[in-house]
């Protein structure tokens, strides 16, 4: 125990021993890139070569990874349990879709428009929703999504209603890369967008802002007591997350040339939660593991018998919650120790 007087705050450790230096460095170096982080991208490029006939599914998987990643920011990092994330996904999808169905098929601007609209919905709904906690918050997020679902249903002249949006025409990217029927352009389009968004998410997560989100999740009372503007921080991450979710929705809309009401429903919101719990919540890479497993399994099951899919995914959710709370990444952690 130190015998000198208490060091005044504001004074740095002048002569810290080597162990102390090492401790501080370990803490400070958490944001550095590790070799393992290249794995998902290598795998994605390898998949392009190895599974040329599955590229459309692959593109969808990449877009949904973005969706789950956006949900992880809010759920895993900020600790906001939401049942309405599809609201942003659907907003982005319908925005890009309606543009493409009404004469403006340029993909990049459509994507940005989708992200912007979704961010707006996130900001406005966040102002309402994020003042509350617990069941009330859960309810509000669900109501926002259901509200938008109902609006899309009723405004069928614009959205196509129950039948979905028809007549989307997406132009080639940069005038050069046409969306071909093998899904090659779609695959790389989604991959690049995912990469850029992942990079952004990673920066945010490792920033002081991202660390403060962890604090908000772990002990909100303490965050207030150290002067953190909690509601504002949550609003910022909620808006960013909404923008990313909207981007994912726009990607799906543009690459499948279809948008339907299912983009806004409870099942869609739930699927984000499910995909994250499989991979591991709050770990940035949970989405990269959970989404492919979920979507490939769903793809397989939809050929056999769709009803059984619900049984097994439901059972899996129950088992994961009871036995394997941290998802696959959590299991890996436990094995490593």
């Amino acid at each position, binding site marked *: *125990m*130190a015998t*000198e*007087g*208490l*060091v*005044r*705050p*504001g*004074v*740095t*450790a002048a002569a*810290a021993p080597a162990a*102390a230096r090492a*401790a*501080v460095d*370990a*803490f*400070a*170096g*958490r*944001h*550095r890139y590790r070799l393992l982080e290249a794995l998902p991208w290598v795998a994605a490029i390898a998949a392009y070569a190895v599974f040329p006939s599955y590229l459309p599914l692959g593109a969808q998987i990449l877009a949904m990874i973005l969706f789950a990643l956006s949900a992880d920011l809010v759920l895993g990092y900020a600790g906001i349990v939401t049942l309405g994330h599809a609201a942003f996904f659907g907003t982005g999808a319908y925005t890009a879709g309606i543009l493409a169905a009404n004469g403006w098929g340029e993909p990049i601007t459509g994507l940005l428009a989708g992200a912007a609209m979704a961010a707006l919905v996130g900001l406005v709904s966040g102002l309402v929703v994020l003042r509350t906690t617990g069941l009330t918050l859960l309810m509000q997020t669900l109501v926002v999504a259901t509200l938008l679902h109902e609006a899309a249903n009723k405004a069928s002249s614009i959205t196509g209603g129950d039948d979905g949006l028809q007549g989307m025409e997406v132009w080639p990217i940069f005038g050069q890369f046409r969306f071909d029927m093998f899904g090659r352009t779609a695959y790389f389009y989604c991959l690049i967008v995912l990469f850029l968004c992942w990079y952004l998410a990673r*920066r*945010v997560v*490792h*920033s*002081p*802002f*991202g*660390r*403060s989100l*962890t*604090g908000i999740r*772990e*002990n909100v*009372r*303490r*965050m*207030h*007591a*150290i*002067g*953190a*503007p*909690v509601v504002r*921080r949550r609003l*910022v991450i909620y808006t960013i997350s909404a923008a990313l979710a909207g981007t994912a929705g726009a990607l799906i809309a543009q690459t499948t040339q279809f948008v339907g009401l299912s983009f806004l429903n409870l099942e869609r919101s739930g699927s984000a939660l499910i995909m994250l719990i499989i991979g591991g919540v709050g770990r940035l890479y949970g989405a990269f593991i959970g989404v492919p497993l979920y979507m490939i399994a769903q793809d397989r099951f939809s050929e056999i018998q769709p009803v059984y899919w619900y049984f097994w995914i439901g059972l899996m959710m129950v088992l994961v919650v009871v036995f394997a709370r941290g998802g696959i990444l959590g299991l890996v952690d436990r094995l490593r120790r």
Partner: protein
Amino acid sequence: MSVNKPSAPNGPALETRGLCKSFGALTVADAIDFRLERGARQALIGPNGAGKTTFVELVSGGLSPSAGQILIDGAEVTELPQAARVKRGLARTFQINALFRRLTALENVTLAIAERDGVAGDLLRPAGRHNRVIEEAFALLESLGLAEDALRPVNALAYGRQRLIEIAVALGLSPKVLLLDEPAAGVPSSDTGLIIAVIERLPADIGVLIIDHDMDLVFRLARRITVMVQGRILVEGPPEAIAADPRVRQVYLGERAQGRETR
């Protein structure tokens, strides 16, 4: 780069004027006029239900008063939420540890320092690059004898050491006013000395208010004692005067005397 503004050199660090709080017909704070001077070492004592916890919540911003004013360093903060009062120089510890249990000790303190310095809202630069913040946090932990626990998660540490981290987090805010709510509560008596030693060495210009039941701790650390009973300040003064005051004895011992009679 603290956000605390320079202040009037002679004013009290913390002051309340006519502070009142009622829940319907129940008055828990009754026109409290309280001063905590700069650099003070003051204690707030009183029997259970006296309103000490309410007072702390009112001052820190957890409860809003029915009437009265609260001033930190001469500036009125009555309408401000808790986070804003922290920015004006108020820090508190909680009676039951309120730490980020799954995060490391170092992380706990860096979060506080980052908020103080206004870098916590930085979205794009990696937290690891803010070397100054991390080093200061480590130095603070070191000065409290917690250097070896810096990278361990808080929930893996002994409760006494967690209590010290609670104080470290509050210190990281470079406060002008520090409210210590039962700092040794829940700590095994073998570790109480550690906590007392830390409090004894707090920087001289911080006004410290200790709320506690432990008379040994109070009489050892406080230069001035405020006695609160039923939401009102009964008497204030140096420890010897308080110990000798018949009213104080009545309040504390009177209950015991009554108990003896009924037995």
